[in-house]
């Protein structure tokens, strides 16, 4: 057998070993027996020394070719085994995503907070600031400054909760956020473009549409040349911005001691879009709140000259808006703090 043949055979043997390796470890372990100094292919190099130059060149070339083939076979096998290994590992990690139990922790802001923030955002966009004030107020801030003296028959419009502070009935839980209007006018003066959101109190028994504690947002604009038309236009702009372009507003004469002319503020029924339904008692309109031109007496009470400045004010319930938006039927549900309710929104 010639050296060339031996080289060829050794190459075939090496390739067979490589192909027979069943794992990367086995392959790695076999490597020295193939290419190492003591391996068959390794030993041929020494045998070359005894050959004549021509033969040495031919055999050397053959040896290099065989070594390269074996090297390629090794590389190929390594790639195959690596790919197999990866497939095996990945298969071992196979996961049915639908069988995985999860418990996502989704927090929830209260419906009233959500509605209040949305309302604030709309008014901020219209150039209003947001004013806040105390929930317990003196009679003066809650009533007298608002043109509702003690004997005024209109006091019966608000069922008032009084605080027992040993000073008669001077301190009340505010029945509206209007006291904040008074404070803003006192502290700041015109021009005023502000909304007053907050918690208010009435001596009302809780039922599906009443709570002794609820939330209101009022608005106040005082500036030179403010008209009733401005009031109507502002409420209309707000209505479209908050409820959508298809919803409009209208004003009907009403009475509040602190505004004159006064109005009820209706919007297109958001349930039926104005066609008439149970919610709107087939009128196509829903009463949202009250509004009007700030009464000159109120301006005088805070030292604003009603001849120089005029203004308008409006107010409505936040809770009811949230109720309407989500189709909640009973106002009381908003305040039981039942997680089955709260985590729906």
């Amino acid at each position, binding site marked *: 057998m010639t050296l060339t043949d031996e080289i060829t055979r050794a190459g075939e043997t090496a390739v067979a070993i490589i192909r027979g390796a069943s794992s990367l470890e086995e392959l790695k372990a076999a490597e020295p027996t193939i290419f190492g100094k003591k391996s068959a292919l390794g030993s041929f190099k020494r045998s070359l020394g005894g050959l004549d130059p021509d033969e040495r060149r031919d055999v050397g070339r053959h040896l290099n070719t065989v070594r390269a083939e074996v090297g390629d076979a090794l590389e190929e096998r390594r790639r195959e085994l690596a790919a197999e290994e990866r497939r095996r590992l990945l298969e071992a990690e196979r996961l049915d995503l639908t069988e995985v139990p999860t418990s996502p922790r989704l*927090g929830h802001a209260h419906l009233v907070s959500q509605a209040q923030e949305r309302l604030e955002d709309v008014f901020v966009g219209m*150039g209003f600031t947001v004013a806040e004030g105390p929930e317990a107020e003196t009679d003066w801030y809650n009533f007298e400054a608002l043109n509702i003296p003690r004997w005024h028959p209109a006091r019966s419009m608000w069922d008032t909760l009084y605080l027992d*502070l040993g000073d008669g009935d001077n301190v009340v*839980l505010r029945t509206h956020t209007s006291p904040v209007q008074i404070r803003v006018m006192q502290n700041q003066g015109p021009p005023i473009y502000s909304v007053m959101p907050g918690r208010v109190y009435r001596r009302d028994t809780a039922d599906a549409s009443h709570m002794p504690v609820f939330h209101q947002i009022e608005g106040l604009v005082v500036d030179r040349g403010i008209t009733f038309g401005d009031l109507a236009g502002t409420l209309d702009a707000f209505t479209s911005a908050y409820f959508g372009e298809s919803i409009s507003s209208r004003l009907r004469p009403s009475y509040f001691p602190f505004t*004159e002319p006064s109005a009820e503020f209706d919007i297109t029924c958001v349930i039926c879009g104005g066609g008439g339904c149970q919610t709107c008692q087939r009128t196509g309109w829903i009463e949202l709140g009250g509004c009007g*031109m700030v*009464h000159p007496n109120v301006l005088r009470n805070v030292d604003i000259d009603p001849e120089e400045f005029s203004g308008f004010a409006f107010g409505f319930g936040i809770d009811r808006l949230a109720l309407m938006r989500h189709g909640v039927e009973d106002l009381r549900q908003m*305040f039981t*703090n039942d997680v089955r309710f709260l985590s729906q929104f």
Partner: protein
Amino acid sequence: MKVLLTWLREFAPIEGDPTELGEAMSSLGMAVESMETFDFMDGLVVARVLDLRSHPSADRIQLVDVDAGDGEPLQICCGAFNMAVGDLVPLATLGSTMPNGMEIARRRMRGEWSNGMLCSAAEIGLGSDAAGIMVLPEGLTPGTPVAEALGLADEVLWDLEINPNRPDAMSVIGVARDLAAHLGVPFSVPRWVVPETGESVSEVASVEISAPELCGRFVARVLRDVTVGSSPTWMQTRLSLCGMRPINSVVDVSNYVMLELGIPNHTYDLNRVPGGHLGVRWAREGERIVTLDGVERDLGPTDGVIVDADDTPIGIAGVMGGASTEIGPGTTDVLLEAAWWNQRAIAETSARLGLRSEASARFERGADWAINDLATDRFCHLMSEMGATVTRGHIDVFGVIPERPRVTVRVNRVNAMLGTTLDGERIRGLLEPIGFEFEPGSPADAPVVVVPSFRPDTTTEIDVIEEIARHHGYDRIETTVPRSPVAGHLTGYQQDRRRARRLLVGAGLIEAMPLPFLAPGDVTRAGLRVESPVTLANPLAAEESVLRPSLLPGILNAIAYNESHRNPSVEFFEIGTVFSAPAPGEIVPTENEHLAVALAGREAPGAKEYWDLLVAAFDAPGATLRNQDDLPGLHPTRGGVVSVGDSTVGVVGEVDPGVLEAWGIPERVAWLEIDLGAFLRSEHGAHRYRPVSVYPSSDIDLAFVVPDDRQASEVEEVLRDAAGPELARLVLFDVYRGEGVEPGSRSLAYSLRLQAPDRTLTDEDVALIRARCIEAVEDRLEGHLRH
């Protein structure tokens, strides 16, 4: 206020579609709450009860034979027992349909045939009485349709919501006047003719006003030959539809006149009023009177009274008459009063006595003082049609009546307020039909108008401007949007509050919103030590009589509610106001906005995590936590106070197990409550930029054995101080008690990352810092490095 179309038509030719008329009234500020027509009454006829027989096999229904017009007895089964033989009742005949959609068919009830249905007033829309079968007025012919018999064929009934500034609209004529002006049709009140006979009224009666500021006007007339019987059917029908129960001819006429003209009036049995003398004065302390409703009432010096010749009170002015002079079945001579009372006096008396009547409601809003004589004439006119005779003349005594204000109405002011371009003529055209008179010769651009006596609410220019706007039409005023010169924005505090809410929602908490009211025992039950929580003077219920001094009790209620509905381990937060007694010299309670986190099913460390979260989110550099035993409401050995800088802002820990037991909460609750205002008022939120060092950092771990009475936070403080500016991060990663650590101490293992902004720290640098840290803990905390 309920009004009927036919009644309105007696004062103005009002025509049109009922719905459109209703909308017109709404647009005038008299909102229509409901509207009824009576065309459903086809098939509903008058029937006479011929016989009442018991049902052979049922106790709760009886057999009624009625004459439905043909004279033949028709058997009806009926569940009511209030009618008598001879009564006239409404019968829904076979084939008719009830307002609720029920069709009437012949059917057997417990074996007996029923050939129709007898109806209650409520069932056919004639009032609210559903207790028994409606007994119709005498004199109707059986077989006639009820609608026709009662004159309801073209009738429309509106229920109007009348605002407090519209006393005029508390009457049929007031509504008719407003609506007529809107429709542009004439309005007038007839002068009713009263046939007078016999002596002059002043011979049999007299009136003396001793309190002129209380009683502005007192008109009296005397009627004789009065028969107290039933009033005519048409009157009873109108009264019933307008919500007043027919009683007898005198009471019915009195109510009719009040509804029609808005003038409450009162009748006395003349023979029970000695000498026919009535006096008006303020009551005296200690005086008492039994009112018409049979209740004895204490009077005081702020109450007006009508007294007899002996100066004994026989009526409370404007609120309710006395029992002693009440009209009875045998009354033949009637002394009639139509007075005008001071609004405020009536309001105060009515409120003080808790006694509200139709009369007091009208007087306290302000009745018309100009037509009291007309009202007595109308009363006498109606009574004379029932056979009474009327003595000659009126007694008409005046006290202090309000002046009719003369108001200058500047045309440009009107337009400046409304955003309109109305001229003087148009304004006049709007105001005159509703009773405002224009003073002749006043300037065209600022006419002086005289307010009608029936509009006591109107005294100033702005009041008149409202009337102009109302009759011009709110919907005809062009809308404009004023341009705010202000940049809309939230305050820093409002933005921070929103950030806190977003942070906690993002961390998976649910925002709760309990009512701020507590039951009296809740404060102590929650372990809170509040000397005197703020209480309500007039709570609706005792359980809602205390204003919360802390968010804890309300949240515990919320957790307990959820636990009891099989929802344990709820994690809540709340942002809300708490109240405490007024600060010295203050009138109103102190209010603070608190933020609370409550984690049911978790222990104190859970709450501490949220405190750390807040501190990190708001970058509050001065924030500290200090353990403290026995904090109110908290687990006595698992609580701490949190501070920012020098001010304590709240507590963190776990709710006292005893408190949880009292609330029936079966798992632990981690609790954090801070004064959000105080927290946000202290230094926070700078988030100052620190250059990110490009030089490598070195980490060293140090475990110290420190006595238990040294808080870990102290170790941390000492390490920060000792390590100096090269300390980039400090983390407590292990706490160990047990073998190898002496009792009464624990090992606290910290990881320190050291880094300089301007160079690579050398091994010597690191060793130096390490040594400083060890020395500081040894010197200041009696701790030592764990070996």
